[in-house]
């Protein structure tokens, strides 16, 4: 009997699908991988919709569970997959859409839908609020390279890992100008690296889309930011990608 290929499912929930696009932006790697494994339910690539009750070796989930259907799907794929991996900030730590939770959610729902009722208004939570997540590929969006490296690590039976160094470390290697010293907001010292400090290359301070790095010294950063910003302003920056929740949990 033919040995079956490793079967990977990719499921985007509610979201921008930018992480799926990041995967697609390296088409050479995708095609190379396709010859080694079976990729199913990559809805940007194929018509056949695979049922969530099929069994998988690895399932990647992007986005936020924001409909009853999203939540059910997430629970079902968890049941039928050996590994569930979150891809992107939304799935990992709530991401941009999680900012909804810092508002009166009924009030902003009324604002957007002008008082019309009948539309689900589910709280924005990361995947881990609903199911066990085996591993997170962080970032908004993820880096395509990290995704493929991760899959290859799993294929050769290596326990996947993400280097635990702050964005700051990678930024210094790149020789970028330090925006924090310059008085801008940058969460580089407390944010998990692996992104090659890509935002800093474009002189955009890090807002923590990859989440907190292990042993993040948040209080040191806050002390530095207080030289120029109020606590309220600092908290707002922590809100953007969901870092605030991670700090609260620490």
């Amino acid at each position, binding site marked *: 009997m033919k040995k079956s290929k490793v079967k990977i499912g990719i499921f985007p929930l509610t979201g921008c699908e930018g992480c799926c696009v990041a995967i697609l932006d390296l088409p050479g790697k995708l095609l190379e991988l396709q010859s080694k494994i079976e990729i199913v339910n990559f809805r940007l690539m194929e018509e056949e919709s695979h049922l969530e009750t099929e069994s998988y070796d690895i399932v990647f989930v992007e986005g936020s569970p924001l409909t009853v259907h999203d939540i059910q799907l997430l629970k079902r794929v968890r049941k039928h997959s050996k590994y569930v991996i979150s891809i992107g900030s939304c799935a990992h730590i709530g991401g941009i859409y999680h900012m909804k939770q810092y508002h009166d959610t009924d009030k902003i729902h009324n604002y957007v839908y002008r008082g019309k009722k009948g539309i689900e208004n589910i709280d924005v939570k990361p995947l881990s609020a609903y199911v066990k997540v085996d591993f997170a590929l962080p970032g*908004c969006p993820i880096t395509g390279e990290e995704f493929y490296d991760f899959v290859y690590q799993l294929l050769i039976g290596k326990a996947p890992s993400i280097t635990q160094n702050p964005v700051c470390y990678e930024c210094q290697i790149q020789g970028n100008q330090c925006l924090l010293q310059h008085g801008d907001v940058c969460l580089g010292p407390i944010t998990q690296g692996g992104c090659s400090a890509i935002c800093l290359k*474009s002189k955009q301070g890090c807002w923590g889309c990859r989440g907190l790095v292990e042993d993040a010294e948040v209080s040191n950063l806050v002390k530095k930011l207080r030289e120029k910003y109020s606590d309220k302003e600092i908290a707002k920056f922590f809100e953007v990608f969901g870092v605030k929740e991670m700090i609260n949990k620490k």
Partner: protein
Amino acid sequence: MKTIKINHIAKTEGHLSFVGAMLDNNFAQAHIETEEGARLIEGILLGRKYYEAPIITSRICGVCPIVHNLTSIKAMESALNVKVTPEIILLRKILENAQIIHSHAIHAYFFSFPDIIGVSNNFNLINKFPKESKIALEVRDWGVQLARIIGGRTVHPINSVIGGFNVEPDLKELDEFMAMKDEVLKKAAQIYNFVIKYKLPKFQRPTNYVSLKSNSEYAVYDGKIYFSDNKSYDSAETFLRDVQEIVLPHEKVKRTQHLERAFMVGALARLNNSFDQLNPEAKKAWNKLKIKLPCYNSFYNILAQVVEIVNCIEELEKDYKLYKKISDKKLLVEVKPRSGKGYAVMEAPRGLLYHEYELNAQGNILHCNVITPTAMFLANLEKDLEQLLPQIKNYSDKKQKDLIKTLIRAYDPCISCATH
């Protein structure tokens, strides 16, 4: 009464379903349902700082983040009374054209073309047409790389901000990619010539085509908003005078109409309205079809997209030459918070995109409204489907469903954008 339901239509951006019903032999009802959750992006932005809007709104869509970023920036610049330099505008145009190239390449070739030839899985498409698929990917990648060099990243731009660009893109790298222009143009033409060998379904339904229009160029960044049915013009500030957003109970996507009629935006609308402004190679390509304009067959949106790929390549090369000629470039102008209202429109790959904001003196967002191309054309797509259904009533179930999906995908709907 026969009903047709198609769940989870793939190869579109975001999740959608279709429900249709034949009321009698000649009349049908059609409805597109979004399966995306409500993210309430406009609500999220309330109370946030003006400079967060381009970053947050680009996350509405991972396929067209650039145009959300740029439209948000333009609206904020109008609210803050910021005037940018010609070199900033040129770079933005190049960035937007690069975005259109890569979005169209994936949609026209990998989402819609397989419908025309009856292949449902793109991995099979690649096996069946390895040469053409490779070329399509190369054309797309060229657009992706240009967007990366200027925007700082392929998905969700970083470098493009209110007031211009944080850093000048790596000109050496840009030069290298621009040097490939003739080759890429040839490849785009090859794809076009390949795709037009296959026949598109017959269909005709005149409608109101709405797009930006300018006398000097094929407008994507700026221009007046042109409505083809009554030949009227509007600006971003007055766009909502005759255009209404309609909120229906239980509907996550707001429908949009102009003077109570559905209208179409996107590649075919632009081409119908601005054919004269197309660049020579793009014009030549469309003329091969020998179709009288305006073209009322919505399936031709697919070919209009491929023509636009050719046009974008020609256009951004012109813009880059102009950009290079400017000495003493100023890529970032000063921005200061103040109270005000700002409106902007741009052409996203899928059609007109509208952003509006109101700020207080500290630059906090008091009001925000985003109307996306898919929200604009959804009612028109439903009207098209209602005309298509009686036309195909004698077809087998499978053939009916295939054609319905082909038409839906030809519009290139982005349900993530529409729901936001």
